[in-house]
């Protein structure tokens, strides 16, 4: 029962002089929906690529669906389903033709292929559009078709790399709906990366990776429990003074995140009167939030995921204008 679908031991990967992954140990149990969170450049993609046999690890071992990724590549590839961040459909083929192509290359027995195609198309709600060219599909439909295709060959582990990136909130919710449903019909382990924190809530367990290492791993509830504090964000007309006064007068460590002075205190609501009494800068707004995965992320990495996106994406053209104070 407690068998691992994914087992990593001391996994490292070095590109030239850069250590992208620095010793990851990880066990993902069979049937688990496992979330992998981290800013760009944290080693997330490198780790996923190693698990999918697309990149070779520098050292350490990785066993996926019972096979070693470095020596049994074909065996691993046949037992995993992949949904990449970038689309990989042939838009000049119909939905059905895309699935058929996949079924043949993954060796699904012909006698079962037709029936299986029906099943996965129904699962993602695309049965009616099966004969249509993929170029007529919306972004959400294409994503669903890719998930259906990833499931076609009865994989033991399904990798979803940012499955909802670039989709509108409604479609994102629908995708997670389908993911939830397929867990009931398929005997499968799902390994998903996302940078939408609210989506990480759907996972049984999540790991936060930063600087090539796993800095936290647990259920979303347990991780939020470790924070034990509310997040308070205030808008002031003098942030620097506010931060200084918070430190001097109230002993609170604050910093600017997302354009607001941000800090954590055990009882946010009770803290507000003291805040107004102690600070002599003008406070325009106060926001108090119960701990969320965003806070967990911030507690372990020192950044919110949006901060991380901004500084991590080195090619971001607006980086210098992004109002860092």
């Amino acid at each position, binding site marked *: 029962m407690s068998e691992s679908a994914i087992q990593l031991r001391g996994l490292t990967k070095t590109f030239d002089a850069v250590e992208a992954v620095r010793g990851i140990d990880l066990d993902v149990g069979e049937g688990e929906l496992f979330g992998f969170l981290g800013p760009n450049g944290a080693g997330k993609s490198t780790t996923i690529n190693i698990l*999918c046999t*697309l990149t070779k690890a520098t050292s350490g071992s990785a066993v996926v669906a019972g096979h070693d990724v470095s020596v049994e590549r*074909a*065996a691993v*590839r*046949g037992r995993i389903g*992949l949904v*990449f961040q*970038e*689309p*990989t*459909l*042939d*838009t*000049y*083929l119909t939905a059905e*033709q895309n699935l*058929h*192509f*996949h079924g*043949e*290359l*993954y*060796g*699904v*027995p012909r*006698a*079962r292929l037709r029936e299986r195609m029906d099943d996965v198309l129904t699962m993602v709600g695309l049965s009616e559009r099966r004969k249509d*060219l993929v170029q007529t599909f919306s972004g959400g439909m294409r994503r669903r078709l890719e998930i259906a295709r990833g499931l076609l*060959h*009865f994989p033991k582990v399904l990798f979803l790399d940012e499955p909802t990136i670039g989709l509108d909130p409604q479609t994102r919710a629908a995708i997670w709906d389908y993911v939830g449903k397929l867990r009931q019909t398929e*005997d499968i382990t799902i390994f998903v990366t996302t940078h939408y924190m609210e989506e990480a809530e759907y996972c049984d367990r999540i790991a936060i990776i930063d600087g090539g290492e796993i800095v936290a791993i647990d259920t979303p509830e347990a991780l939020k429990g470790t924070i034990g504090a509310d997040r308070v964000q205030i808008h002031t007309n003098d942030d620097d003074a506010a931060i200084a006064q918070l430190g001097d007068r109230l002993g609170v460590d604050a910093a600017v995140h997302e354009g607001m002075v941000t800090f954590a205190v055990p009882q946010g609501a009770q803290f507000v009167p003291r805040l107004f009494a102690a600070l002599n800068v003008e406070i325009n707004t106060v926001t108090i939030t119960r701990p969320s995965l965003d806070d967990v992320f911030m507690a372990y990495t020192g950044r919110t995921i949006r901060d991380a996106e901004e500084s991590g994406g080195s090619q971001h053209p607006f980086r210098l204008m992004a109002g860092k104070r």
Partner: protein
Amino acid sequence: MTTRTDTPAVPIVPVAAGPAHELRSAMMVWRREMVRFRHDRARMIVMLLQPLLFLFVMGTGLSSIVETGGDVDFRTFLFPGVLAMSVLFSAAFAGVSLVWDREFGFLREMLVAPVSKFAIIGGKCLGGSTVATLQSVVLLALAGLVGVPYNPMLMIQLLGLLFVGAFMLTALGVLLSARIKQIQTAMPTSQLIIMPMMFLSGALFPMANLPDWLAVLTKLNPLTYVVQPMRAAIFDHMDVPDGARELLDPSITWFGATIPVGVQILVAAGFAVAVLTAGVLAFKRTD
């Protein structure tokens, strides 16, 4: 092969190993090219126009000044060259379409499948060359207009040779697309390679009495060993005076020795396989 199907509730384990699976995958890649070709009739018509221009406009124009040594129509001479040309371009483009596949992500879907790159690339080359050869059928149907007899045996020979040439050019296109990642670069580069191959194959002018440097280049050109056997096959099925044949269809010699047609075809096929292998190796290194 040993999968039991009497327990439908249990997911079956796909059979993704062994030569049968490799063949099945290659055939699927081939079929994709066929499906896409069916969807794209416009391409077929456009691709036909250029060789028709060469055959009837340029061929008719030049026939008044080219010495054919008797009563052979210059357009009869030109026919195999134009056939080869039409196949050449569409085959090379079919190979280069891998750059598109990469750009739209589908190459990744193919390359992560549990199957060898040889099956993928081989299937792609087979598909591209089949499409190119099919396109030439329309041109072949016009053989009678330029005095080439509709002999079934001849047609089969020509199609077979065209297929070898098409395979060579598709494989070349594939090899190119392993190195070139941008379609804007890949297209002109493939033209840059096709043009000299076409000119140096004897497709458009007779190879007799060429200056030495040109004669050497034609012998180094693998496409010569497709075009010359085609022309020989056509003349074999016609009544051509010896003098005209010597002028229009001189035998290929290496260091004075005449090379039989069978060996010429082997040279072409061998080169095609070599390019395919190079393409597979190149994809193993990069993607």
